[in-house]
């Protein structure tokens, strides 16, 4: 549908160029390409994709899995929805390349339940690819490379985007993150080596194989190569999905989407941080806030405590409830924000809450609890004047 402007992801590439090329290479060469490209995961932690693939490839097991993380649940993130619906074929190609690289025979797409309406299209595309010989036995005519893709649905749990929770969910469990180590590349789905990659990561990987490492590394900045797809919403004129070169500053980004007059932006969704206007010019989006590429623009009128409250409500609901700091901590932070709003939070108690927030960041079991206080803390850090006005002076 779209006339999207892009460099790496939002471009037209002859279908299966990447896969055809990959199949002419050795598995190790494919992994080396990904490693040399410097591609980092686009779904969250920014872990180098080549390293991840290599770990899974070298783990000894007959059965391995590729899981495509299409659980996109981070508030303000919707770029995977666009990629899933507009680049379905390219995604399936990317998953197949990953399967070839690590020696897996099964790929699983974990699609969030909220995107049920995308399921049919994906299933149809899988069927089409199977009938064309790009899935199934001897993929693309390559002897002894059998690979197929299934789709599994989520059922309304943000935490299932966390890779080990996702695997638990695939195994028919509550989506409660596992202890790490061991990591999925070693002990993943059904105890087998498994790579979990974001939708965007997998499409990008297929592009890298299709068009070459050198082409890819032309984009981005030294440590972070390539481009990034951003989901931009909130107080701006042209919200939507954009692909930008990594290295773009927030100021530049806002100019593109017509959000010049912002008071602050939330980088990386509810798990991310709030960046005040004074830092717009110096902050490079992505490097400084990698989570998922969500950008929520906050206009001058917005109350920062409303933002913190909304996010904390989100975490209270979405915490899996397994570990103490996150389960019990988030409701307390939420309560703290409410107290701040109505002026009943003493300075002393605020200090206790900041200490609690630190504990949540350090001692929670998974990324959800570890990052849930981020917005709260960065708001307190950057919007002191707005908040301290409401703290009762003892």
């Amino acid at each position: 549908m779209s006339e999207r402007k892009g460099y790496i992801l939002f471009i037209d590439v002859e279908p299966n160029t990447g896969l055809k090329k990959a199949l002419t290479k050795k598995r190790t060469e494919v992994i080396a390409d990904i490693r040399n490209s410097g591609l980092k995961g686009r779904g969250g932690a920014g872990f180098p994709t080549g390293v991840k693939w290599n770990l899974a490839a070298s783990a000894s097991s007959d059965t391995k899995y590729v899981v495509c993380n299409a659980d996109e649940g981070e508030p303000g993130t919707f770029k995977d929805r666009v990629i899933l619906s507009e680049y379905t074929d390219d995604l399936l190609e990317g998953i197949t390349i990953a399967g070839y690289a690590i020696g897996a025979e099964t790929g699983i797409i974990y699609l969030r339940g909220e995107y049920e309406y995308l399921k049919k299209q994906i299933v149809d595309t899988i069927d089409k690819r199977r009938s064309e010989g790009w899935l199934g036995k001897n993929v693309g005519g390559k002897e002894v490379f059998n690979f197929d893709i299934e789709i599994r649905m989520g059922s309304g749990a943000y935490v299932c985007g966390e890779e080990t929770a996702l695997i638990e969910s695939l195994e028919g469990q509550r989506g409660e993150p596992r202890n790490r180590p061991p990591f999925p590349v070693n002990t993943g789905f059904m105890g087998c080596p498994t790579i979990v990659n974001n939708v965007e990561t997998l499409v990008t990987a297929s592009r890298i194989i299709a068009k070459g490492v050198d082409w890819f590394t032309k984009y981005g900045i030294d440590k972070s190569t390539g481009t990034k797809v951003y989901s931009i919403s909130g107080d701006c004129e042209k919200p939507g999905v954009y692909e930008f070169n990594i290295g773009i500053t927030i100021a530049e980004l806002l100019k593109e989407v017509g959000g010049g007059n912002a008071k602050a932006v939330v980088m990386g969704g509810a798990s991310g941080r709030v960046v005040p206007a004074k830092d717009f010019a110096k902050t490079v989006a992505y490097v400084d806030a990698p989570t998922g590429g969500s950008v929520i623009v906050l206009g001058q009128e917005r109350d920062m405590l409303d933002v913190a409250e909304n996010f904390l409500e989100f975490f209270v609901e979405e915490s899996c409830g397994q570990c103490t700091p996150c389960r019990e901590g988030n409701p307390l932070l939420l309560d703290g924000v409410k107290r701040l709003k109505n002026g009943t939070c003493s300075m002393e108690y605020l200090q206790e809450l900041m200490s609690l927030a630190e504990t949540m960041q350090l001692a929670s079991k998974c990324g959800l609890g570890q990052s849930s206080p981020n917005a709260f803390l960065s708001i307190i850090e950057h919007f002191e004047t707005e908040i301290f006005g409401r703290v009762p002076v003892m």
Partner: protein
Amino acid sequence: MEDKKINSDTSRAPKSVKPHTIKIEDTDGIGGKVKVTIDGVDVRVPFGTTILDAAKMINVHIPTLCHHEDLCVAGVCRVCVVDVEGQRTLQASCAYPITQPIVVHTTSPKVRRARRNIIDLLLSKHYGECYSCVRNNNCELQTLAKEYGVDKYRFGHITERRHEVDNSSYALRRDMDKCVLCRRCVRTCIDLQEVGVLGAIGRGDETVIGTFMDKPLADVICINCGQCINRCPTGALQANDPSDEIWNAIDDPKKHVVIQTAPSPRAGIGEEFGLEPGVPLTFEMNTALRRCGFDKVFDTNFTADLTIIEEGTELILRLYNALVKKDPQIALPQFTSCSPGWVKYIEHFYPEYLAHVSSSKSPQQMFGAVIKTYYAQINNIDPADIVTVALMPCSAKKFECNRPEMSDSGYKDVDYGLTTRELAQMIREAGIDLPRIPKSDFDDPFGSATGSGVIFGATGGVMEAALRTVFELVTGQIADPDALAGQVSEIRGFDGIKYKELTLPEKLGPVPDILRMNKDVPFDSWDWLSGATLKLAVAHGTANAKKVLDDIIAGGKFSECHFIEFMACPGGCLGGGGQPIPTTPEIRKARAKAIYSEDQAYEIRKSHDNPAVVELYVKFLTEGPNGHLAHKLLHTHYTPRGKYIA
């Protein structure tokens, strides 16, 4: 690749319910040791050891809450976090396997702050007051609060109940307002016991430990084993305590209150009074019970011996009818019936196998029936005035004595099941310093007991006791218990499932008098058993029972067995749900040692040699073992309950 199974001998823990098993690959390929530096001290540990275990080796104490030695790793409470150099976040030491050299700090300011905050968080939602709580002074949450010097509730303190107490069960009481969501009970019930009553329900801060559709415990398939109680760090789970009613009965001059005491509590009760595990206090306890006001103190071992005779006779009859008469209706192997948790388990999960369960009642229930009939008769006491209390290591006994069919004396055969913990409480309340009071003996006429009865407390004990008797009665030769123990050593110890084949000699003795008392015994020589090989098995912990039953269904080697001992609790009764808390593999081993040494101290060590048992048959159960009256009083029937929860 190796599964590091904690206490693998009692845990089946299928893959599907044990996602948190630590599974790591020995990447350096030498399977050797790794160096770890904890608080400046270097130690070399086997590859894959957790930081927590490594710290134990050098006596560094790291607090824990959700960790339990019997259970798989959870890593959820986060109390045990430590600082690992090079890691951005703190790591749960109970769940962190050491696979490369690391440097760990267990008490850095960050760590201390985190632990303190976590404890404060737990307390903020903890509704309960220590002085009105069973776990006062033996509560892991309380200990943590003390260790970390909690002097105020920094994050507030809940002042209203959020959950109703579930009092529906005869055996257990659940107060989820005291729950810290460590999920030890869930892991116990599903992994260790394979019953699957408890689960985490809801998510986020609404998570609560609950049952299927939040039904009361009495309405779901709980087997009352109480293993979850023993592993709960707090007072959220406790047994249903009858001590108030018992005090009332004692204080009522009209009531004749008798107590029978099982072997396992004696091996465990010392722990409640600060002694090392494994110090038996049998005879001190007798004195204490009298001082508490019990009118008579009897030894459950008496009916354990009786059980051996009844159950052994039943087995012999089954064998004869199956092997000689070729009666296809006869169910073999015969299963033991003395563990009420196990009985309820099979009623729910394998009701089609109930015919295999011995119809003999458990020693507790036999005792109750004998007290309210024979004992009442010879002492000329109105059974209506007798209150029978059973001191048991077991919470399921509370359910058992309330089974409607358990009133063959015409009265409720056993009025109260009292656990070791509850008796310890009564003794404390009576101001008695148990370890230091004089010893005294059991009361007659049921005071004499044998070593066979004692070893009922340990897994394999019923089997061994039965063998002592069967061997001697069948061969006509005096069996030396210690020699026999050596011969069947496989059935002692803590392996989850034990198997033994025992071949009888060609030349067998005459059928003994005690059996001949029953005129219905259809043979007058043992020829049909000459040279026969008995196939025997022992399983403890219902997860292991399940394995055995599934094997039987599949027609595996256990289907060939003649006799199988099942105990619901890991370790047997000595690890029962009414025993002192905590429980660990070491503690259970120590209790077992106490039990076996007590056996050796007995003069009479074989059930059929118990003079009181012989006298009971001569004077009362005159038609002999499995005779008409014995059947009425000492045998029972079972209810196929099935798994469906209405």
